[in-house]
């Protein structure tokens, strides 16, 4: 439509490929109409955030065009996008904590080229608050605000910048259901004054309630755009996840035993900003059993993992490994009990950067009875031998045992980490996103190793954002949503039900 008044922004065949080969956007073409609320749905890794970052000027596309109000534009920075009226409200508010809300707005305006005084900024925040029912105190220091309030501040900031298109990235992640509802109402009010809102979300109920049209992305492609009135839950799920063949599972020698190695009772864990990220989670993992926890990122997985691992204290509830209550204890107790930990971040959490493989072996087994220690003394000879064994057994490609651990590639790092954790002959393995960033072959070997450990009697709890991974290796799958376990199932898995539980 040549310069049509209906279309605000048009994206034509946007391509984006990240170094490392991942194609985040494959010829994505989408129009955004004036005065509409457009829902953008998709699994983790579908490419939604990349696409929206391109629209907002944060990321440059490899190919493709962006046309705003009939004029082709090229954004060299978010400032250009803001000048054209496109503002991104990120998933995690990016405000200066020590400033007040008004000061943040003043800063944003100045950076966009519109100098205002603090007094004017305060007035703007008041006005925006009045007009849209956005309760936020312009003189409040950001560090004191709750997540919901911070988000309102971010939106006030966007509106102060004169946004005609607001891109909201997973805005309800940290909001209570009431606050989420208020946000949806706000989106509709904005649409009524001819502004446009793109709502990235994985929560079908929300988007069905507020959107005019819904776009679905999968694996970097735009699968389709439907009118909300014609959309149903089933249709959207099918568009999001596609036709799934029955996922074959990797073979196991033995099945789960009957003795539980991990019992979690009614766990409540606070996240950042004093809200509860884990709300009354109870679960059990038996010997030789692989339990997978599925969910969209940001639903409490990290806090749950940190509590299980022992670096975050739960407010309520119990964590019991074998028969020992470790709720109030740390990593040392777990190590002693034979718990192995495979965290999400390889360099920085599983491994200490700047130090050698031998050192990282020594640290990994710091609390394990099988560690290279004799009382308070370190046996470096034993540590070296152990490292050598790990490197050989796992076929880690490294130029030596004393090289800094970051000289290894991602896949080799993960092999080393797995080998190190297995050297503990663990009773329980806690893993989070164990195959993240790995190619198909490496992923396969990680999975085989995990299952081997389970065959040897270890209980395995795998928290993952990759549903396929869990479908392949788990005996049972639990779905976590908003900090609660909302669904549980053993084999055979009903894919639709799992996806539904994740997307509610």
């Amino acid at each position, binding site marked *: 439509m040549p310069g049509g008044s209906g279309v605000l922004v048009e994206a034509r065949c946007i391509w984006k490929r990240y170094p490392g080969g991942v194609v985040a956007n494959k010829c994505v073409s989408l129009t955004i109409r004036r005065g509409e609320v457009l829902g953008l749905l998709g699994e983790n890794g579908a490419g939604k955030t990349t696409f929206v970052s391109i629209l907002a000027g944060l990321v440059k596309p490899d190919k493709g065009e962006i046309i705003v109000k009939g004029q082709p534009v090229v954004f060299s920075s978010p400032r250009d996008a803001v000048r054209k009226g496109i503002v991104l409200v990120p998933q995690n508010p990016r405000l200066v904590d020590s400033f007040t809300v008004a000061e943040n707005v003043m800063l944003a305006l100045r950076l966009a080229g519109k100098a205002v005084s603090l007094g004017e900024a305060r007035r703007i925040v008041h006005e925006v608050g009045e007009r849209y029912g956005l309760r936020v105190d312009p003189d409040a220091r950001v560090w004191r605000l709750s997540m919901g309030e911070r988000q309102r501040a971010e939106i006030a900031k966007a509106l102060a910048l004169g946004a005609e298109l607001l891109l909201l990235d997973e805005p309800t992640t940290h909001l209570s259901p009431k606050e989420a509802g208020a946000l949806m109402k706000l989106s509709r009010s904005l649409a009524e004054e001819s502004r446009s809102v793109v709502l990235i979300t994985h929560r079908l109920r929300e988007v069905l309630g507020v959107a005019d049209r819904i776009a679905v992305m999968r694996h970097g492609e735009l699968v389709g755009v439907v009118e909300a009135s014609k959309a149903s839950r089933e249709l959207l799920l099918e568009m999001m996840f596609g036709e799934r063949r029955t996922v074959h599972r990797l073979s196991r020698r033995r099945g789960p035993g009957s003795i539980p190695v991990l019992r979690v009772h009614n766990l409540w864990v606070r996240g950042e900003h004093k809200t509860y990220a884990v709300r009354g989670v109870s679960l059990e993992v038996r010997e030789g059993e692989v339990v997978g926890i599925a969910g969209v990122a940001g639903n409490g997985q990290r806090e749950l993992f940190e509590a299980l691992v*022992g*670096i975050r204290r739960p407010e309520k509830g119990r964590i019991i490994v074998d028969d020992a209550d470790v709720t109030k204890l740390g990593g040392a107790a777990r190590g002693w009990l034979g718990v192995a*930990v495979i965290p999400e971040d390889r360099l*920085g959490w599983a491994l200490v950067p700047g130090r050698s493989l031998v050192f990282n072996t020594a640290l990994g087994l710091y*609390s394990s009875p099988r560690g290279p220690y004799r009382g308070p003394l*370190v046996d470096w000879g034993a540590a070296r031998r152990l490292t050598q064994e790990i490197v050989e057994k796992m076929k880690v490609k490294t130029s030596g045992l004393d090289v800094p651990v970051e000289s290894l590639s991602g896949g080799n790092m993960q092999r080393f980490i797995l080998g190190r954790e297995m050297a503990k002959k663990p009773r329980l393995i806690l893993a989070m996103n164990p195959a993240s960033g790995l190619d198909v072959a490496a992923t396969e070997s990680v999975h085989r190793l995990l299952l081997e450990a389970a065959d040897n009697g270890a209980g395995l709890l795998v928290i993952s954002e990759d549903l396929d991974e869990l479908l392949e290796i788990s005996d049972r799958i639990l779905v976590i949503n908003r900090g609660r376990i909302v669904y549980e199932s053993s084999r055979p898995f009903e894919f639709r039900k799992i996806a539904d539980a994740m997307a509610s």
Partner: protein
Amino acid sequence: MEGAARALAHRSLFVRLGRWSSVLYGLAGLVLGFLVSIGLGVFTPAGAGGVASALAGVFTSPGSWPLAFPYYAAILFSAVGLAVAYRSGFITIGADGQLIVGMVVAFWLLYFHGMGLAVALIVAGLVGALYGLAVAVLRVWLGVNETLSSLMLNYVAVALVNYLVGGPWSSGGFTKTPLLPSSVSMSVSSAALLATLSAVGVWLLYRYTRLGVAVDAVGGSRRAAETYGASFAKTILVVALLGGFLGGLGGAVYLVAGQRQITSLNIYQGLGYGYMGILAAWLAWLNPLATIASSLFIALLYLANTGLQLQGVPWSFALGFQAVIVLFVTAFLRLSRREA
């Protein structure tokens, strides 16, 4: 084209040198630092020539080194504790205050209560440990920045000394205490030996016990350390206690083998050796064993500078020379690592 070829040649030379390249880089930094210091000497009454001959004099005649041993001991006792602390990410600058507190406690026990030397040294160490513990407790339980709190405690120590030498401990109305009785003594060689042995002891602790692993883990990634059982809180507390003990002990040793009395102090300069210990720790690249060499080096520099003061060069220049040399050496060492 030329530049690329030269760069390639440089690289291959570097590769051939291997591990010794760091030493060469360090020496290059040292030479450059010396030259710059000598150059700066033109601004002093001694002139560049005076600075050059003072530096050369001290470094080339080992017979004069015992004069520097009291400084060496004070600096090393500070540096070795700091090296371990900094490795764990605990950036305290409280060594000077611990030295002072150790001096005060030792003087009190030795002069007023006639205690034995060994007892005085140990108690001085324990009090120093408590002084260090305070900083750690504030950090671990209240998140108070240790650099700031340790600096404040340094000021408190100086204030304490100035009160004592100006009042109850004053000798003859001057702002200094009387001298220790001659029955209480420690030779400078013994002081140097004690400091060196302590440094070796710390190195053994770091290298062969769990503490070393915990220190490096907590300093490298607190999350990794806590996940696998190396407690942040426990590690910081131990490191602070250890450094504090060494600092208190160092102050006592310095009193008995060196100064023999306590004089008033400038609040910003303090005793000084604790701050020099920071330089020595970084110069040693936080290697506890290497602090022996770096502390001796800094002590000798200081000796040369005390000589220069007699020629009219102000005390601040002396510190300036030390700083310039350390700056160049560490910069060059850093460069050598980046190449690798």
